[in-house]
């Protein structure tokens, strides 16, 4: 047996080349995460004069009885679930439309991606004005159509505020979902639909039997991205409602922000970060596992 020098040399070069990236990753991802874990077993707040005092899993015990934490987790779950479902349905609709051949399709595609390309903070400001109780255009439209008689302070009402922020998020990120799904749609060869039509399928049957299974990988990828983004949503909510009214739209990330920056409770804040992080990782891991199964089922060659 001769040694495979070429392979060995390639492998050595390979390690050398990824070394800088690996170091950067360790520094900016691994270190902060581990530091957060470490910090979460200390109590470090105003009562300890901001000195770290080891307290074991006390922070986690406190979290279990923290009603505000559970409420913010519930808000995050509602926000994430609602915006994901709406974005998937609307995004699929937009993608199917953009997949059709029509004049000026290139322009429409470019315009469709715009909401996603705009800064979230600006969009949040715009939506805050749209939903403004006195001057908002939304009230104006509804009143002109005589759907409501008196103006509603949408973002000031605990029942309506959540819908307001969901609407803004859906408006912004539907196009992101649509573009991802469009890529999936375009990878489906036209003759599959033709073969299916000859087999006797209606367009609806083709959608169910051909389109959906074949874009399932893209659907999952889009949902995975969107889950990670929506679960950690901060800027949109902070600008639109600041978590209010009365905590009605307070997400986990806003609660963590308040705990650390306002109450200067660093140890407990770190524990909150750790728990959110674990939830996020768990969901992403399950989804990724499922994704590889779906890709296989969709006949993607590996």
């Amino acid at each position, binding site marked *: 047996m001769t040694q495979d020098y070429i392979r060995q040399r390639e492998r050595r070069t390979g390690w050398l080349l990824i070394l800088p990236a690996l170091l950067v990753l360790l520094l900016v991802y691994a270190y902060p995460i581990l530091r957060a874990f470490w910090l979460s077993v200390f109590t470090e707040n105003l009562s300890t004069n901001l000195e770290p005092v080891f307290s074991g899993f006390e922070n986690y015990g406190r979290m279990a009885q923290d009603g505000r934490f559970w409420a913010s987790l519930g808000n995050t779950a509602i926000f994430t679930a609602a915006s994901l479902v709406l974005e998937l349905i609307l995004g699929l609709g937009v993608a199917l439309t953009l997949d059709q051949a029509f004049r000026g399709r290139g322009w429409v595609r470019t315009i469709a991606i715009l909401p996603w390309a705009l800064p979230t903070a600006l969009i949040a400001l715009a939506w805050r004005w749209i939903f403004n109780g006195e001057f908002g255009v939304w009230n104006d439209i509804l009143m002109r159509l005589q759907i409501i008689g008196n103006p509603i302070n949408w973002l000031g009402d605990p029942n309506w505020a959540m819908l307001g922020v969901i609407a803004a998020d859906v408006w912004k990120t539907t196009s992101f979902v649509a573009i991802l799904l469009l890529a999936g749609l375009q990878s489906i*060869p036209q003759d599959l639909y*033709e073969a*299916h039509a*000859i*087999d*006797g399928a209606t367009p609806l049957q083709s959608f169910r*039997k*051909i389109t959906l299974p*074949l874009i399932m990988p893209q659907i999952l990828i889009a949902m995975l991205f969107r889950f990670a983004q929506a679960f950690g949503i901060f800027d949109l909510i902070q600008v639109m409602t600041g978590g209010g009214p009365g905590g009605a739209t307070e997400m986990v990330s806003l609660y963590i922000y308040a705990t650390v920056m306002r109450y200067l409770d660093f140890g407990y804040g770190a524990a909150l970060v750790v728990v959110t992080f674990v939830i996020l990782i768990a969901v992403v891991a399950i989804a990724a596992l499922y994704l590889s199964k779906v890709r296989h089922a969709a*006949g993607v060659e590996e």
Partner: protein
Amino acid sequence: MAKLELQNLTKAYSKTVVPVKDLSLTVDDNEFLTLVGPSGCGKSTILRMIAGLEQVTQGTVSIGGRDVTPLAPGDRNIAMVFQSYALYPHMTVYDNMASGLKLRKLGVGDIQKRIQSASQVLGLDPLLDRRPSQLSGGQRQRVALGRALVREPDVFLLDEPLSNLDALLREQVRADLKQIFERQESPVVYVTHDQTEAMTLSTKVAVLSEGYLQQLDAPNEIYRRPANRFVAGFIGSPQMNLMTLERVENSVLLGEFKIELPDAARKGSSVILGIRPEHVRLPQEGDCQIVRGDVFLVENLGMSDLVSVRLHGSDDRVLRAMLPADATWSRENIELALPPQSIHWFDVETEARLTS
């Protein structure tokens, strides 16, 4: 099992882009029609109009006496094999074949029976649980064929089904195809640009060019009596020698040699002479039309040599001849005979065949 009839079929995308022009033909049960022609001749468009994938501009398509022109593809009871096979990548081989049957609400037992018999014929039994991505090109091709066979349709349509296979496999599958479709009663329409496939598979060949039907005949008729210059040049490999020659009374001049014209070709100032390389031979006793020239190219085809000869008396006249490979032909002065019964004559203006 039903006669397929095309009447005055026309497809126009715009006033100037008209890929199919006023085509009429019929394919009976037990007939295998091949549409052959160079790319852009409209052959695939015709097939897609029969399938209902392309809107017919004018004319009708009928199957078994039933006008199907306005019907959707699924209501025509046809089956089609695509050039790309168009297998559903997310379904197993079995499900690929069952798809059309399920959509037609066949019972599970019936579906199983049909797939079983088709997979036996095609040797797909061990592959039924695989997905298309796990199959070789030849296997995919057979699945696509199986999907058409289990449908037991009124008409089979095949769109260049062999063009994605390598040369060796193509020959083998071509033979398989012939056997499989000889057992089927339903008419078959087969599109190809490969004349060998057209000649070997079909009972009828339609040669198309620029949207027009050039000739519709049995394969050997097309080979023996091409209807015009285009068909003569398109069918046959190596290509037929075609030369436009000046007429001098009852004969034409080929370089310094005189070739006598048959009665029907004695008109106009010039005519087109056509002779297949395989019909040009070394002179034997009794041959009267003999030409001489210099060999300038020899292509070894294995069983014979394709020899290109520059004829004496005219530098740009080249005659290609298939000669036995058991001699060397390099750079020598050679004599060749043109047997009169193997010469085709075509009109210069209309390019139509002059002799019967």
